[in-house]
C-alpha cells in the first residue's frame, strides 16, 4: 500500500517543477524572440537610412495623420542633413590646404 501511495506524491512534486521550467523556457524564448524582432527592425531602419544616416522610428502610415507625420519627419531629417552638409562644406572652404605654401 505504501509503495502505491508514494508514486503519485513524487509525481505531484515533479509537475510544478516541470511547469516552472516550461514557464522559464517560455519567458526566455519570448524575450529572445522580442529581442531578435527588435534587432531586425533596427537593422531595417539603418539600411533605409543609409542615404540619410540617421536613427529611425516607425510611423503607422495606414491613416492620413501618420502619413502626414511621416512626411514631416522625413523632411525634418533631410533639413538636418542639409544643415550638416552646409557646415562641413564651409569647413572645407576655409581649409588652408589648397593655399600655395612658401617653398
Amino acid at each position: 500500500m505504501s509503495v502505491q501511495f508514494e508514486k503519485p506524491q513524487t509525481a505531484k512534486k515533479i509537475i510544478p517543477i516541470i511547469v516552472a521550467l516550461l514557464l522559464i523556457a517560455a519567458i526566455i524564448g519570448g524575450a529572445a524572440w522580442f529581442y531578435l524582432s527588435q534587432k531586425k527592425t533596427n537593422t531595417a531602419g539603418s539600411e533605409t537610412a543609409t542615404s540619410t544616416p540617421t536613427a529611425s522610428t516607425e510611423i503607422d502610415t495606414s491613416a492620413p495623420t501618420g502619413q502626414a507625420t511621416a512626411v514631416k519627419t522625413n523632411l525634418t531629417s533631410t533639413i538636418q542633413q542639409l544643415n550638416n552638409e552646409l557646415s562641413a562644406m564651409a569647413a572645407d572652404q576655409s581649409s588652408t590646404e589648397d593655399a600655395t605654401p612658401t617653398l
Partner: protein
Amino acid sequence: MRRLLSSLVLAIGFILVASPALAQTSATPTATATVTAAPIVSISDLTQTNRNTLRAALQAYQAAKATDTVQRMELIQRFITAQITTRTTAVTKMEDVFNIGRCKNVDATAKTDVLAQLTAINTNLTTEQQGITTLTTVDEAKTLSQDVIQSNRVFVIAAPAVYGTCASQTVLYVKSSKIDPLVIKLKAAGKDTTAMETDLNLAVTDATAAYTSFLNALKTRSTTPIDLITTGKSSLTKARNDLTNAASEAQKLADSSATATPTTQ
C-alpha cells in the same frame, strides 16, 4: 485537471511575453522615418592625419639649408608625395560618400557623373606622382607642387562640390522615394496637399539648380571661381527653406487629420 491548468498558465505566460514581438511583426503599414541626422565630418577633418604629415614634411623642407640642394630636393619630393597622398585620401573619402555612404542610393546618373570627376582627379594625381621621379631641380619641384594644388583644388572646390551634389541629390531622392508615395496616399484620403506640394516642387527646382552648380564646379575645378560653390550653396539653402515650409504644411495636415479622425491616434 492539474495538467490542464499548467498548460493554461504556460500559454498565458507565453502570450504575455511574446505579444510585444507579435506586435512588432504586425502587418500595419509603416514608414521608416528618419529623426536625427548623423553629424557629417568635413573632408579636411577626415584627412587630419595626412594633413599633419604634410605639415611636418613642409616644415622639414623649409628648415633645410638653402645651400644643401641635394637635401632640399629630397625633402621637397617628400613634401609633394605627402601633398598627393593627402589628396588621394581625400578623394577616396569623397568617393565613399556615393559608393557606400549617405548618397549611395541617389540617382544613378548623378552618382556616375560625380564619381567620374573624382576618378579624373585620381588620374591627375597619379600622373603627378609619376612626375616626382623625373624632377631634376628644386624649381621644377616647386612648379609640380603648385600644380598638385591648382589643378585639383581638392579641398576648396572638390570637397564642398561633392558634399553639395550629395546634399542636393538627397533632396531629390527623399522627395521621389519617400515623400511622393505618402502624398499619393494623402490625396487618396481626400487631403488637400496643394500647399505642401508647391513647397516640395520649389525644393526640387532649387535642389536641381544647386546640383548643376556643384557639378559644374567639380568639372571645372582647376579654373572655376569659388563663386560657383557659393551659388550652389545659395540654391541649397533655398531648397532647405522650401523643405522647412513643406514640413510646416505637413504638420498642418497631420493636425487637421487628427482632429478629423481621432481614432487614428
